[in-house]
């Protein structure tokens, strides 16, 4: 669906994307990363808003540099920040966006009604968008991105500013679009649960680079084993044991109170932990295999752990 080949984007002296090469398959793909990782920049570059300093990009089989209008006719974009067409009610605003995308006026109006019902704004469709709450504005942004029935959606932080209920509903809409309505999408977010709930695949960005990518489930299967570990040392201090674990190539992070989360690479598993504990004269009081989350993948990818 989307591919970037050695793409570099810079804002003056600030490089936002560094030699990025990545492919987004059809379906729901999460674009995950902390603020400033380059997620929004990537989406804007794919829409042709930003011309990269180098590299090539393709969307739906077309070169972004050559056919940006053909691409935009088949792509829907939900921007991150608050955005709407001023001076219009919701249905006029969405119908206007449909007409801008090439739909005949009558069709655009019919689609606007349908899409507003779909995103849950059916009853509010004759209200001016300026009077909407943040959550309702997010839904209008989704509606305007959907009105021309795109093959691909770019959703930039779609749950920004939404209350928990609204957030859940938005994520359900996104999930429904991707899994039941056949609309491929790229969901940019710094919220791990959003991506985990809606996407099959994930691309993790950090500092303008792709830090990790793959299927969500596959990425959550580490090449090693994760454990929750609690130990008792003769002196009561565990720092020296943590140092020994790290010295043996085992990742070690403090979790709740005296429980550590340790990642043992390779096939060593619990046997290696027991051996190290015995050598250090430390008692293992608690050892339980832990299920890795996307948060672990994310944190590992961006180097926080």
């Amino acid at each position, binding site marked *: 669906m989307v591919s970037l080949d050695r793409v570099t984007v810079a804002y003056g002296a600030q490089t936002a994307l560094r030699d990025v090469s990545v492919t987004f398959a059809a379906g729901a793909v999460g674009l995950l990363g902390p603020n400033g990782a380059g997620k929004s920049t990537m989406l804007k570059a794919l*829409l042709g808003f930003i011309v990269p300093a180098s590299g090539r990009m393709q969307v739906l089989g077309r070169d972004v540099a050559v056919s940006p209008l053909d691409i935009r006719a088949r792509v829907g*974009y939900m*921007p991150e920040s608050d955005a709407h067409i001023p001076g219009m009610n919701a249905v006029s605003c969405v119908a206007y966006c449909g007409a*801008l995308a090439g739909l005949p006026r009558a069709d655009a109006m019919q689609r606007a009604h349908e899409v507003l019902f*779909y995103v849950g704004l059916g009853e509010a469709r004759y209200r001016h968008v300026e009077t909407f709450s943040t959550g309702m504005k997010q839904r209008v942004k989704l509606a305007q991105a959907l009105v021309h029935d795109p093959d691909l959606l770019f959703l930039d932080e779609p749950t920004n500013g939404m209350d928990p209920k609204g957030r859940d509903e938005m994520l359900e809409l996104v999930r429904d679009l991707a899994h039941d309505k056949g609309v491929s999408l790229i969901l940019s977010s710094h919220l791990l649960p959003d991506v985990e709930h809606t996407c099959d695949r994930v691309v993790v960005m950090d500092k303008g680079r792709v830090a990790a990518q793959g299927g969500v489930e596959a990425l959550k299967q580490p090449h090693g084993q994760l454990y929750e570990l609690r130990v008792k040392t003769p002196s009561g201090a565990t720092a020296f044991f943590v140092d020994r674990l790290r010295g043996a190539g085992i990742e070690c992070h403090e979790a709740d109170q005296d429980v550590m989360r340790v990642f043992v690479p390779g096939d060593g598993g619990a046997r290696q932990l027991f051996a190290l504990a015995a050598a250090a004269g430390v008692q293992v009081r608690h050892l339980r295999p832990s299920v890795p989350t996307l948060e672990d993948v994310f944190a590992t990818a961006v180097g926080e752990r």
Partner: protein
Amino acid sequence: MSPIHNQGYRRYVGERAASGRAWMVIASSGLRSLFGRRVFLGLLLVSWFPFFVRAVQIYAAANVPQASFLAPTPAMFRQFLGQQDVFVFFVAVYAGAGLIANDRRANALPIYLSKPLTRAEYVLGKLVILAALLLGITWLPAIVLLAVQIAFAGNLTFFRENLFLWPAITLFSLVEVLVVSASMLALSSLSNSSRFVGILYAGLLFFTSAVYGVIFATTRNTRFSVLSFQANLERLGDAIFRQPSKYASPWPLSLLILVALVAASTWVLERRIRGVEVVA
């Protein structure tokens, strides 16, 4: 049993227009929105008041022998378009100041430019809104006035003797509308506040005229009229209508300045109309 309508998401199978027509959507929507405002309709009505006065003048000259001194001349058409300048100002401020500024305030540019339209199409759509309205209070009444003269006189004598008039009306109206629309759009793209844009535009007109006024008061030389936005338009208008001008500045210089103003406006618009704002 009545059918159950699915209000879920459906794929669209209808036709889609080829890209390149979005400017018409922008223009027609903008015009519909303005014509839906009573204040604006009132302003348009007032803008046509000089037309009715001139129509009465032409009627009297054609039908009342004692009023033959009111007979239309090319100078009358030039004066008529000059009188319309005040309405051009008010319509430009009312309808033009918010054209881009309001979109910037609502952050609508990323939405517009994520659709299959170019930045040039966006600007063209906005330009057509203002240009159509301004032509509606300059070119249209002037041309209708020419038709009224023919109708009331019952012959084509005046029209034949002044064949240059309709091209002159058309050319001057187009130049004035283009310069005013381009300047207003450029100013509108510089701010998120339509009020501020209105003040900026008024400042552009009044400040440049004031500068010229001060220089003229001290030097008594009208060649410095090139410093005034309005005086340049007037100087060019006088040349187009083959009328003696009160300004001594050469009209090609006025034309050059107006062309430079449009070029500068285009440059500003090129810089400001973007899907993403980069603060370097």
